[in-house]
């Protein structure tokens, strides 16, 4: 049994646990074995917390023995992106500057995960401070794409996506500031959801851009995302930007979608998120999915969001501006790395400077410099101010579009996974990978990416669905319907087509 459970979805694993057919310790052990077997090739984790996970599993098993099942995913292990703070477990944000930092508190979502009885397997790799689209900016090495070990797993949450796609974990937590959940999901053939801004607490997420960051599920099925989303979502008094309203019922929406019927659902194809720059195989896969949705009864129209082409520029002003301020606290004074200047006096200012110089990687420094410049006196209006206006225009584009359609759709990313190093020296080319995912962050609306098939290069393509703020349930309904139609066509999940990894 233990050799097979890792191939099951989280919902299936939870069912076995709840019925007593498998213990949480067995589930955790199976995944730890898998991690041990494939990590040398993947490097999806920065830190594996085997003992912590087993201890949590033992507690969950003990609870079950007393008849307590704390949530629909109880007993099922999970991996957490290493930008989410975990009490007593090292949290690095993939940066040298936080090497060895052990937080004294849990993020709200980690508290919720623990309370729901999900043992935490470890902390997954990412681009340093979630800045990047390839996980190549991690201070702890590259993570490989399970579909092709020469290629990137997307970013910034490449570790979470690779771990899930490679069956190291059935569930993972990601964070999405400009696409860091959805784009990795797309290029690894997994499912990733960026909830409505404010739908999931940010307390305990190491902030990159506070007005854009949002944590969400990374899974292999739409239903699993809905289950996890319901566990981590909801109001948190520790986060003033969290929404003080009950979540819509997401699992029910996924179950409704899985019936395959989308009669009466109006789907808008975003004209601006197609065409030039989109790989042929990506566009082809996207069109095939539209056909399936139409066949399921959905009404498909083309919608224009005229300001989307400016989204990337606005994003690369707002995000670095906020990041430059959020990352100021990493200064060697209170926690993490501390570097003293090699010569000259050891003053606080010089220690801060030496620490930041040594602790931050190039991409982080690039964004801090960009943001510091954009916020400086005399430039604020031209850069940060203008970017905020563009942001408002993009929000209006969404509002107008959602007057006529229930959801918007596009390819998640313009290309499939590229090779390591291919875009590392060309930041602009790297940034372009997020062109389709960024508008949702700027507007605070929710989005999902699910696999829509393979491109002509044999690599996974992601299909993105966007819904109005607080209507996350629509993502699950449409997503589950498409997933069902695709799996019927393929005769099983896309990931079963992935090459087997060499097991040590």
């Amino acid at each position: 049994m233990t050799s097979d459970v890792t191939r099951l979805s989280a919902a299936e694993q939870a069912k076995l646990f709840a019925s007593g057919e498998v213990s949480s310790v067995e589930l955790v052990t199976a995944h730890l074995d898998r991690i041990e077997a494939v990590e040398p090739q993947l490097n999806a984790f920065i830190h594996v917390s085997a003992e912590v996970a087993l201890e949590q599993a033992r507690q969950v098993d003990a609870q079950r023995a007393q008849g307590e099942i704390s949530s629909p995913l109880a007993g099922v292990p999970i991996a957490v992106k290493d930008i989410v703070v975990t009490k007593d477990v090292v949290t690095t944000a993939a940066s040298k500057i936080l090497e060895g930092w052990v937080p004294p508190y849990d993020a709200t979502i980690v508290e919720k995960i623990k309370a729901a009885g999900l043992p935490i397997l470890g902390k997954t790799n990412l681009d340093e401070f979630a800045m990047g689209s390839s996980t190549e900016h991690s201070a702890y090495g590259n993570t490989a794409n399970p579909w092709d070990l020469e290629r990137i797993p997307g970013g910034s949450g490449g570790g979470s996506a690779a771990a899930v796609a490679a069956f190291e974990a059935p569930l993972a937590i990601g964070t999405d500031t400009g696409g860091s959940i959805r784009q990795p999901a797309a290029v690894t053939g997994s499912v990733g959801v960026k909830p409505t801004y404010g739908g999931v607490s940010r307390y305990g997420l190491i902030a990159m851009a506070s007005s854009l960051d949002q944590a969400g599920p990374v899974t292999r099925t739409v239903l699993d995302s809905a289950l996890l989303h319901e566990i981590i979502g909801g109001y948190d008094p520790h986060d003033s930007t969290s929404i003080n309203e009950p979540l819509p019922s997401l699992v029910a929406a996924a179950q409704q979608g899985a019936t395959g019927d989308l009669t009466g659902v109006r789907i808008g194809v975003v004209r601006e998120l197609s065409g030039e720059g989109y790989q042929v195989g990506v566009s082809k896969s996207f069109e095939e999915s539209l056909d399936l949705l139409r066949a399921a009864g959905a009404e498909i129209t083309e919608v224009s969001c005229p300001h989307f082409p400016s989204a990337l520029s606005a994003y690369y002003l707002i995000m670095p501006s906020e990041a430059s301020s959020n990352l100021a606290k990493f200064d060697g004074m209170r926690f993490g790395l501390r570097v003293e200047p090699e010569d000259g006096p050891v003053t606080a200012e010089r220690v801060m400077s030496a620490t930041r110089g040594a602790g931050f990687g190039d991409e982080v420094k690039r964004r801090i410099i960009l943001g510091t410049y954009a916020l400086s006196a005399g430039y604020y209006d031209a850069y940060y101010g203008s970017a905020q206006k563009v942001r408002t225009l993009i929000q209006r584009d969404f509002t107008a579009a959602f007057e006529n359609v229930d959801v918007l759709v596009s390819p998640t990313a313009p290309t499939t996974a590229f090779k390591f190093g291919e875009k590392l020296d060309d930041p602009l080319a790297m940034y372009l990978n997020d062109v389709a995912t960024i508008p949702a962050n700027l507007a605070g609306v929710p989005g999902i990416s699910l696999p829509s098939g393979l491109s002509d290069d044999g690599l996974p393509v992601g299909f993105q669905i966007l819904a109005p703020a607080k209507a996350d349930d629509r993502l699950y309904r449409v997503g589950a319907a498409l997933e069902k139609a695709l799996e019927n066509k393929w005769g099983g999940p896309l990931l079963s087509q992935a090459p087997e990894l060499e097991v040590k």
Partner: protein
Amino acid sequence: MAAAPVDLVDFDEAIAKYDPVLGIEVHVELGTRTKMFCAAGVSFGAEPNSETTPVSLGLPGSLPVVNGEAVEYAIRIGLALNCKIAETCRFARKNYFYPDVPKNYQISQYDEPIAYDGYLDVELEDGTVYRVEIERAHMEEDAGKNTHVGGDGGRIHGAAYSLVDYNRAGIPLVEIVTRPITGVGERAPEVARAYVQTLRDIFRALDVSEARMERGNVRADVNLSLRPTPESPLGTRTETKNVNSFRSIEKAVRFEVSRQAAILDAGGTVIQETRHFHEDTGETSSGRVKSDAEDYRYFPEPDLAPVSPSREWVEEIRATLPELPAARRRRLQADWGYSDLEMRDVINADAIDLIETTIAAGTSAAGARKWWMGELARTAKEQDVAIADLAITPVQVAELQQLVDDGKINDKLARQVLAGVLAGEGGPAQVVQDRGLEVVSDDGPLLAAIDEALAAQPDIADKIRGGNLGPVGAIIGAVMKATRGQADAGRVRELVLERVNGS
């Protein structure tokens, strides 16, 4: 630390040539139960770094949440300063690197203060009233506290290392900024002092802060510039930071007037800079030069939703504002029937609360004033202590007056009783008993003394018997002497007449 010698012009001479313009920024630490953005406590003098949370330490991942009580206090202050209260306002980040600022940015308010466009009427000791225009009152968080160890007298320069205590980091502050205060001339130092003092009294009346200057609950930054005439454009100002006593505020203003006048007299230009005030010398010295290089990169705080106090809430707060000090003084003066001069003396002696409590304990307004502004004010001055710090309570003063009113003691004895109370001998009744000061009201001993006096002066007795009441005083005097002043003179007189007339 030896400051470079500074040229100074005599204050009066400087004022004769230049028109001073003041601007005052006052920070008040609010007395909320918890910090501005987290649930850490705020107790004074706690073990260093014990009053902290991940938020007030600026740990990665932590997020601020606005303290509603602090917002209410800020609105109270705004209303008391006749300000408009914003319908919606945002917090902003003020970015700068310094170890006592845990996030390396301070959460403050920038272009959207919670309160704006107000004024405060400030009364000087002679009763002159100046209206100070308030530009804004905004909310922000305090920084931690650096302690520099080793080196010269706790200064950072030459220190071996520095310690940071984050207990203060995140304590709610309200910063109140005036518009330029003009037209004050030679009274600039007094106005500056009275303004801060008036604010301090208001903070206490509003119960938003203990407002103790010596603990740094109230901190003032004094901006000052000079210009040739009141019609001239504003001159270059200096900002003297953290002037932390009322006396120092006056001194700092006087010093800056004298210093800037000397620079202008010599044809120089005043440098726009931050200056530090030195309590010991009463001088200011140059700190940071303010320049364009100081760019705080303000932007709206994305971790916080805007604060939008409903109009109903604001009106509810306005309706429940306590009586402010100026209104209270006017009311009490009318109630007590004091003249303007008498009232001003009471205020200047800081005796208003004492007198109010004494009256509440049953003493007449005149009686309370007689004691506090007479014997007790004199004693306080002799002992060089604040009148409130004398070893006597208003209730004891009321008891003392009650003893006089009941005829148990007379005014002369009362002064001795007062001396006994101040000397720590107990309450008035106790002192009267222990010192045996009660008026002799038992007729027995009095009659004995009268008989003795009459016997000693038979001619006087005859005169009285003959209808001449003039010499009664001599007998009374003798009796008072014999009873060491403890006899009630009126009763003695009655008894003498009874005795002589053989009734």
